[in-house]
C-alpha cells in the first residue's frame, strides 16, 4: 500500500535556518523580558564570545603574531641595549629574556595548533528534486503530529532535507525534497516500501539494530536502493524504528550530521517507535483501508 497524498493541508512553522535562531538564543531583550513579566536578571551579552565567533580566522592566527612579534622584540631589545646575543642564564636580564622567549614560543605553538584543528567547512549542496508532502491517510492525529514534529525538528536543527518513514511494510511519511519521477514529471518518486525492505541497506540496519550513517552517500553502492531521495543527496542516516520500521534521513552536506545529531536522532527514534507501536493496530487498519 503506497502512501497517498495528504488529505488535509499540513502547515507548520516555516523552516528557519539554525543561523537565524542564534541571536534570539544568546541575546535577551530587556523590553521583551519586562513586558513578559519575568522579574529576574537578564543574561549579559558575551562580547568576547561573539567577537571570537565572528573573527574565527583572526583569533586562530593571533597567538602566532603576538608570539612572533614578541620574539623579535626581545631580540631587538637585546641588540639595542648592547647586550651580547648569547643564551646565557647567568644574568637576570638573560633569564628574563629566556622566560619571555619561552612564552613567545608557547604562543606561537598554540596558534599553530589552533590553525591545525581549524574545522573544514563543507559547502551545502541544494538537493535536486521536487518538494514532497506525502503522509499515509487515516493516521491518528497524535501520530501525524509526532511525525511532523520529527520532520520539523530534523529540518530546522540538522542538514536534513528529505525524510522517509517506513513502518510495518508501508511508507507512512515522505516529506521534504524527493527525486522527481521521470515518467510523471513534477511528481515525486513513490517509495516502494517492500522493495526497500528487501534491499541490503534495510536488511543490514535491521540486523544490527543500530543507526547507520552514510556520511558521503556517493561512495556507497547501496545508494541505488534509495531512488526516492534526490540524486545529489550528500549524506544519509538510516535509523531503525524498533524492529518494524526505518527512518531514512537525507542531508545536503557531506558529513553534515554531527555526533550530537546522531545521538539525538537515536533517542527520538526510540520515542517514535514507542508511539508507532502503540498505534500499531490503527496503522494496520489505516494502511489496509
Amino acid at each position, binding site marked *: 500500500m503506497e502512501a497517498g497524498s495528504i488529505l488535509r493541508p499540513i502547515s507548520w512553522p516555516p523552516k528557519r535556518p539554525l543561523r537565524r535562531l542564534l541571536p534570539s538564543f544568546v541575546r535577551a531583550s530587556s523590553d521583551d523580558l519586562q513586558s513578559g513579566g519575568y522579574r*529576574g536578571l537578564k543574561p549579559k551579552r558575551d562580547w568576547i564570545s561573539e567577537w571570537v565567533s565572528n573573527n574565527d580566522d583572526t583569533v586562530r592566527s593571533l597567538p602566532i603574531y603576538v608570539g612572533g612579534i*614578541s620574539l623579535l622584540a626581545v631580540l631587538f631589545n637585546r641588540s639595542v641595549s648592547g647586550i651580547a646575543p648569547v643564551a646565557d642564564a647567568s644574568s637576570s636580564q638573560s633569564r628574563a629574556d629566556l*622566560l*619571555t622567549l619561552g612564552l613567545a614560543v*608557547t604562543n606561537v605553538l598554540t596558534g599553530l595548533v589552533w590553525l591545525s584543528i581549524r574545522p573544514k567547512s563543507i559547502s551545502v549542496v541544494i538537493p535536486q528534486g521536487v518538494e514532497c508532502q506525502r503522509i499515509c491517510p487515516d493516521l491518528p492525529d497524535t501520530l501525524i503530529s509526532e511525525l511532523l514534529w520529527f520532520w520539523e525538528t530534523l529540518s*530546522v536543527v540538522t542538514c536534513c532535507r528529505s525524510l522517509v518513514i517506513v513502518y510495518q511494510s508501508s511508507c507512512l511519511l515522505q516529506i521534504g525534497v524527493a527525486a522527481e519521477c521521470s515518467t510523471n514529471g513534477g511528481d515525486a518518486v513513490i517509495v516502494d516500501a517492500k522493495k526497500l525492505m528487501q534491499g541490503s541497506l534495510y536488511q543490514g540496519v535491521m540486523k544490527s539494530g543500530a543507526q547507520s550513517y552514510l556520511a558521503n552517500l556517493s561512495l556507497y553502492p547501496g545508494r541505488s536502493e534509495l531512488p526516492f531521495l534526490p540524486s545529489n543527496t550528500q549524506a544519509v542516516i538510516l535509523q531503525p524504528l524498533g524492529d518494524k520500521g526505518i527512518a531514512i534521513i537525507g542531508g545536503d552536506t557531506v558529513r553534515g550530521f554531527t555526533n550530537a545529531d546522531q545521538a539525538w536522532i537515536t*533517542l527520538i527514534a526510540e520515542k517514535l517507535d514507542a508511539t508507532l507501536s502503540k498505534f500499531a493496530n490503527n496503522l494496520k487498519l489505516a494502511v489496509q483501508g
Partner: protein
Amino acid sequence: MRSLYLNPFIQLRLPLQFRAFRDSCSSSHSYICKCNRRIRKFGSISARLNNSEETKQQQQQLNLSVLRFTLGIPGFDESILPRWIGYGFGSLLLLNHFVGSNSTITPAQLSSEALGLSLAAFSIALPYLGKFLKGMTPMDQSTLPDGNVQIFVMSENLSDTQKEDLAWGTYILLRNTNTISVLISIQDALCVRGYWNTPEDVSKASIIDWFKRQIDQLGLSDLKDTLYFPQSPDSGLWVMLPKGTRSLLVQPVLRAPNSSANETKEIEGLVMLASSMSYAYSNKDRAWIAAVANKFRGENTCTYF
C-alpha cells in the same frame, strides 16, 4: 523502553576529558580536521578567506599535525597548558625581578619583564578564547555538586501518556546535554528531574507546589524569550537551582503560530535546564533543546495538555 524513561536514577551524561586536537579530529563531524597531509614547505600561514580560494589554499596548506603533542597524562586537558605555562613563567619573571637581580635593574630588563608579563597574561587568557572557536567542544567535566538531592517528581492527575511524554522529555535532555537538573512546566503539569536544591522542610507531597511558587515568584510563566546564563546565574535569586550551578537555560514553550484563534494564551510553559559546567550549552545544544520544547506545544503536537 518506558521503564528507562521513568527510571528516576539515570546516568547523567558526564563528558569525558579528552585532548582537544585528537578528538576534534576523530569525530565524524562535518568539520573535519586537516590531518595527515604531507609537509611541502614551511611558507607563510594565511587564514582562509572565502570558498572561491579554497582549492588554491588547500594546495598551500601545511601539515601542522606534527606540532600536536600530548603529555600522556590521563585525564589532563592539554588545551589549558598555555595557561599553566603563563602562570609558571610569569611567576618566575617576578621571582627573577625581586630576588634574582643583584645590581640595579636596567631599563632593558624592565622592558623584557614587562613584555614577558604581558605574554604571560595573554597565555593565561588563551584557553578561554580557544573555547569559543569553531569546532571546539567544551573541555570542562561536568560534576555532581554535593548538597543536592536527586529527585524525580511529577504533577498528580496526569494521564499515562502525559507522564510518558514528560518522562521521555526529561530523560532525553539529561542524557544528551551537560545537564544535571531539568524542569518542564506545561500549563498545569510540572515534571522535575535531576539534582535540585530543595528545602529540607518541604515534604515530597508539596514539592511540586514549592517549585510552582518559585516559578511564579520569578515570573517565568510569562517568559517569551530564551534565557541563557552561560556563567553562574545569580544563585541568590534562583533559590531552587542546585548548588554549584554554573549554566542555566530557560526555554519557553510557545504555542504554534498556526494555532486556532480561540486560544488567547501564547505561552504554554517552559523548559529549564541547569548544569554544573559553564558554557554548557552550545548553539547546537540549544537548537535541539528548543526542538524538544516544541514537542510539548499544543495544536501542532500531541494535544495532551
